[in-house]
């Protein structure tokens, strides 16, 4: 469980908000709050993860600091979220990675780089590493295919397990039953809300980010990051099909599907992460949880580096730099993937779970149901 003080503070804030309700037009948190009269720990964890940190409510709030009520929903919920990330971490002993997450992610990435670079430099003939390779199988000349794929599959299974355990722990600890998840309408609704980032729209006018003025900038940068990431996943999947089904070996031509998907996605990621970092630089500290700063920056920088090294590899793959770039890219990707469940990325899992719960609650209230508005 998150710390008692933090839960108490979140409960105090929600009791004030629930007596006011001016913010109900901004996002899902306030309508979800209005369905409750009292706030159990499970309600607070759910609401904290439903919050997209758009900050509209902070600037609208007549009770925000320096008012003596000191209502700061975005900051309180951000603090609570980070604690829930720790709580739901699988395996448990890795939950400490959230303590100083920026540092943890950096160290893991450095180790990952060494894991790829050292064996290559020690075991592979330097003449092979530092010479030009072209044509099918060029990458595998430097690092054998099996050495790329087997660790990647292992890490993928590991993180899928971590995501699943985290999801179900969240679901259980917010009072959910497994049977509730068999609700296609709710799943579709939550997916749609997540894919369009509905709740970064603040009732249609945008986030108050980086300052009190409404703006859609952050939403668009986030879209670039998310869809850039998805395009890169798609690129990898298509490449896997090419390799395993059609037996076409990478590298693929510039205008082949995997390269086009990867390039477009990579540029999206590059712009999106740079944009979000730039916004963070101008961010108003008022509604900000300073303890999440390292976690947010760590993940964004890592995504940026993944994309940068990938694009460099693509453009310089026919030069002698390819060997080193390939190893660096793979090292960064390894670091990124391994830290997905132990860094900022994990917000997507719990946010999605919270959106599903919200969608289920909404479906109980549609016309024809007995619940009172």
């Amino acid at each position, binding site marked *: 469980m998150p710390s008692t003080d933090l839960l108490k503070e979140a409960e105090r804030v929600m*009791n*004030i908000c*629930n*007596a*006011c*309700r*001016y*913010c*109900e*037009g*901004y996002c899902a948190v306030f*309508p979800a709050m*209005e369905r409750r*009269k009292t706030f159990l720990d499970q309600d607070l964890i759910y609401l904290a993860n439903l919050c997209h940190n758009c900050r*509209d*409510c902070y*600037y*609208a*709030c*007549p*009770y925000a600091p*320096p*008012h*003596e*009520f000191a209502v700061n929903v975005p900051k309180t919920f951000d603090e609570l979220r980070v604690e829930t990330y720790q709580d739901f971490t699988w395996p448990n002993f890795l939950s400490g990675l959230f303590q100083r997450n920026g540092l943890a992610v950096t160290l893991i990435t450095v180790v990952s780089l060494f894991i790829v670079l050292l064996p290559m430099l020690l075991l592979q003939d330097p003449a092979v590493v530092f010479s030009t390779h072209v044509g099918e199988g060029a990458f595998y000349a430097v690092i054998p295919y099996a050495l790329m794929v087997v660790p990647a599959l292992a890490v993928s299974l590991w993180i899928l397990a971590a995501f699943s355990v985290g999801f179900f722990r969240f679901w259980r600890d917010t009072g959910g039953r497994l049977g509730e998840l068999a609700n296609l309408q709710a799943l579709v609704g939550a997916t749609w809300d997540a894919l369009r980032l509905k709740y970064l729209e603040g*009732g*249609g*006018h945008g986030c108050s980010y980086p300052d*009190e*003025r*409404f703006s859609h900038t952050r939403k668009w940068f986030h879209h670039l990051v998310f869809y850039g990431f998805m395009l890169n996943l798609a690129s990898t999947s298509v490449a896997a099909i090419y390799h395993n089904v059609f037996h076409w070996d990478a590298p693929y031509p510039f205008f082949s599907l995997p390269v086009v998907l990867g390039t477009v996605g990579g540029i999206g990621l590059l712009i999106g992460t740079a944009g979000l970092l730039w916004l*963070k*630089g*101008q*961010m*108003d*500290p008022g509604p900000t949880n300073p303890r999440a*700063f390292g976690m947010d920056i760590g993940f964004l920088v890592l995504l940026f580096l993944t994309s940068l090294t990938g694009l460099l590899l693509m453009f310089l793959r026919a030069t002698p730099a390819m060997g080193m770039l390939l190893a660096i890219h793979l090292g960064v990707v390894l670091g990124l993937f391994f830290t997905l469940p132990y860094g900022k990325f994990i917000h997507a899992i719990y946010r999605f779970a919270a959106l599903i719960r919200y969608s289920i609650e909404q479906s109980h209230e549609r016309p024809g149901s007995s619940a009172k*508005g």
Partner: protein
Amino acid sequence: MLIKRLSTLLLIWRSETQLNIDLSQTFDVLVVGGGNAALCAAMTASEAGATVLVLESAPKDFRSGNSRHTRNLRYVHGSPTDFLTGSYLEEECWDDLLRVTGGKTNERLARLTIRESTDIGEWMETHGCKFQPPLRGTLQLSRTNAFFLGGGRALMNSYYDTARKLGIEVAYDSEVEDLTIDNGNVSTAVVVSNGDSHEVRAKAVVVASGGFEANIPWLKEYWGEAADNFIIRGTPYNQGRMLRALLDKGAKPVGDPTQCHALAVDARAPKFDGGIVTRLDCIPFGIVVNRDAKRFYNEGEDFWPKRYAIWGRLVAQQPGQIAYSIIDSKSIDKFMPSVFPPIEASSIREMATKLELDPSALVETVTTFNSAVQPGTFDSSDLDDCATEGLEPPKTHWALPLEAPPFYGYPLRPGITFTYLSVAVNEQARVMMQNNNPLPNIFAAGEIMYGNILGQGYMAGFGMTIGTVFGRLAGREAARYALD
């Protein structure tokens, strides 16, 4: 870390530059106050070509007076909009106003306000206001009142942003202490800004600095020591200094100086600025007793929205200006949650101890009440037939015996929303003198002139209507005068 530090520095630099205003220049229009009426006047005057300085006595974080606690605005419209259902026309609005004020209104100014409010939402939107579609909390007013997305502070943030884009200067922590009037013409305002006194010259002045509800010594002139026990629901910055200055210089007063809009709020509320969350909607569901554990008014006289505004005065008239609403477990889920948890007890005697009331007196009051309750069918959505018989004062609706523990108690105090005393204005928002001559270049808008239109009572969202309409009027006329 470096980026964070730089951004903090940038923020400090930005807020400091806001005070770097050349106060030695002559402004076309000086706006005293920083709430809705003030900003509407400032934006209108600026758009007419005037140079405008806004003097807000509060620091930036607490700017906007009582507007920061508002939520909606009433305006007439012929057809539904994205934010309003149905239509609401002048005659209906006038009837509503006549009913709540009991006729204490200036019909010319009231009708002017109502007519000028037609489709005012569109003007507000072009000046940054964002409305929200009707949601659960707003449905009961969705035909007559448009709700600001995020409430009044969000509205005011948008207005301040628009003002900034228009090039309007805003000085915070700047209270106008006096106006210099020569031959009926105001020429300078004495401003204390961040501790320093300045004389600011202006061709015209819009006074939109609110009432005097936060000025406890002034309230004591009418309420005596009881005013020490009043809770002020809104800004502590409404000291009425401009109202006093104008009246002292011979402006014509309007509105009963002894009256204020007051409801019963939770006695645990902060002295100032508690806003909406300190209200209590529990009164119709139980009994209300005073310090002597005696009931003093019919708690079920009428629907709560029609009666909540009389309870401030009722409590103010009780000894010690305190009362207690007591309900039982049957009713705890029947009203909006309030910000402070109820005081809980398993018996009436225990409740009396916790509320520091005489236990046997409270037990007797409850027993007498319970035995006077007649059988009926409880329905909180209707004026039901659950009433007492042979009890003084009676409870004429929603009377159920207090018998199902746990019992819940809420302490009540009078919560002052605004005062009615105002300066009289004409149809150009010019301040009127006692000889019925308007001052040529002093205009008033907002709470400082509510009393012209709201002589008593209140109508939800209409204060913002008066502020918006008269703010625009005052801004337009002030700019016209200054630029002539």
